[in-house]
């Protein structure tokens, strides 16, 4: 064909951001290991990882205290932080890809609220079920209810906010506000029905915390989170295509309806499980993918994996902060992530103002 510009003008090869983003996997994994080890040494008791490691190396017995602190408190808490952080960050990235908007996040648009509502209902009303009707044993009831709550909310939200392949940000955020208000109202009512133990559980929902970590909870949440994250990582290509709109994604060969359903399922399951064990921890899902897009581009094939790694690391750091600032007491981690995340969210909002028509 007619060359309109001189083809001999050599143009520099554009940077390969995907390779760069993939190199980030290793770096973030390293960061995660460092943070994880550090988090094992931080805590209200004087137990030090180095002492324990030294003892193990020398073949000495651990004291009962060291055993309990490490195996029953810090390790499950570490595992939970990892899982929840990864779940929240990846859910955020998937949701943003699905809604084609960097402001979508399970926390902000009310999916976490929906999951929380499911969990609250399960906590308070679960005890009221006659044993014959209690199809699910205790530890499963809350996560399943949280998943259902998150799933219904995501579906509802997508229906409300998306018309003819176009997502209205305003509708999405306003629907999130409405759902948040609804959850608040329902939990307000439930507080009156709750007994003391349930009341403590409910307060914990509101603020978000990893303090309740236990192997039992993990046994339920970990598999769910692992499976949904694995599913989400498979969505990378499809989410890239979706950035061009639903119609074009289909032209490129993506089974759009199926991948949308899978995305919603993954977001709901991961968010549901995370909320079920840790309550309402906000902003991880919005801050992490945004930072990663700035660092290495928006390609979801690398973004989702990086989000899992950085999300886990960031939540562990937040958890350490929450354990240290008011030691020996501890701050709910949701407060820490909000203090760190809300300004970033505002910053994204300002940057987006020119681009997105709110």
């Amino acid at each position, binding site marked *: 064909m007619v060359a309109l510009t001189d083809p001999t003008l050599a143009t520099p090869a554009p940077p*390969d951001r*995907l390779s760069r983003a993939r190199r980030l996997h290793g770096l973030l994994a390293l960061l995660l290991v460092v943070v994880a080890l550090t988090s094992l040494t931080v805590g209200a008791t004087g137990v030090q990882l180095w002492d324990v490691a030294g003892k193990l190396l020398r073949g000495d017995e651990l004291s009962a205290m060291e055993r309990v602190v490490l195996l029953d408190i810090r390790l499950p808490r570490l595992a939970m932080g990892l899982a929840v952080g990864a779940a929240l960050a990846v859910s955020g990235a998937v949701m943003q890809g699905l809604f*084609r908007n*960097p402001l979508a996040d399970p926390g902000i648009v009310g999916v976490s609220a929906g999951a929380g509502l499911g969990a609250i209902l399960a906590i308070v009303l679960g005890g009221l079920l006659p044993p014959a009707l209690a199809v699910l044993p205790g530890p499963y009831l809350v996560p399943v209810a949280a998943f259902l709550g998150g799933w219904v909310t995501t579906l509802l939200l997508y229906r409300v906010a998306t018309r003819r392949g176009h997502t209205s940000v305003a509708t999405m955020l306003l629907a999130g506000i409405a759902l948040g208000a609804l959850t608040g109202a329902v939990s307000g009512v439930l507080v009156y029905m709750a007994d003391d133990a349930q009341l403590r559980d409910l307060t914990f929902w509101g603020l978000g915390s990893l303090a309740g970590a236990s192997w039992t909870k993990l046994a339920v949440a970990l598999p769910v989170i692992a499976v949904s994250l694995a599913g989400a990582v498979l969505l990378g290509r499809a989410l890239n295509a979706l950035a*061009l709109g639903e119609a*074009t994604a289909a032209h*490129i060969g993506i089974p*759009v309806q199926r991948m949308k359903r899978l995305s919603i399922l993954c977001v709901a399951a991961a968010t549901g499980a995370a909320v079920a064990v840790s309550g309402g921890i906000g902003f991880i899902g919005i801050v992490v993918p945004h930072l990663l897009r700035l660092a290495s581009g928006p390609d979801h094939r690398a973004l989702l994996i990086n989000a899992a790694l950085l999300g886990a690391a960031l939540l562990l750091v937040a958890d350490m902060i929450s354990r240290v600032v008011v030691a020996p007491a501890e701050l709910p981690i949701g407060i820490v992530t909000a203090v760190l995340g809300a300004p970033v969210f505002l910053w994204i909002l300002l940057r987006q103002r020119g681009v997105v028509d709110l």
Partner: protein
Amino acid sequence: MVHAHDITVRLGRTEVLHRVDFDAAPGKVTAICGPNGSGKTTLLKALTGDLPHGGRITLNGHDLDGLAPWELAAIRGVLPQASALAFPFTVLEVVEIGLSRGRAGHDRRAALQALARVDLGHHAGRPYQSLSGGEQQRAQLARVLAQVGAAADEDGPRWLFLDEPVSALDIAHQLAVMQIARDFADDGGGVVTVMHDLNLTAMFADHVALLSGGHVLAAGPVSGVMSSETLSRAYGCTLRVGLAPPPGTPFILPHPASLAAE
């Protein structure tokens, strides 16, 4: 072959296409022309499998509804009338997204070549959103070209479905893009393109389907359809068709109402 028989499309409560027949052959550029709102985009969307429709459409002999999205993606690319992009991908990345399911596989070189063909090789690393409107349109065309790859192979011809591919382009790039379509057809592929510019249509297309109010007013070879009488009736204004000097291509000259009245 694209073979569409008895196509009816309803959008909302209105019937937008009324029992339309449409055919396109490989090796040919088939243009869809007609006034605004006559149903060109709607017909194209039906042909690409984007709209539920009455009637039957086959592509290379396969029933359109029986093909999975990835099977369709391997034989045809679609350039929509308007495109959007959600995240700050670069121009090259946008083209590579198109490669994710096509036959060309992940081939950066293919993407760069496609960009060079639409004269955007030097902008490959720029954020797509920073391109001008016409440059974005060409980048989208590059994405489609990269996806489709060769014009034909042993499995049969491949197809380009283009909705106003030159609407935002300057005249040099209009010619260049139409030449790409022409070359694709000459290499054995099929091109179906919605066109507003009748002169470019006369210059580059082999066949024309002229739509009006959701009906096919005329269809067939350019020389047959592009007559003063038919075009004037379709568009509701006076149009004179003459023959351009050396190669004998028709050229279309609008006549303002004041002149027509004389």
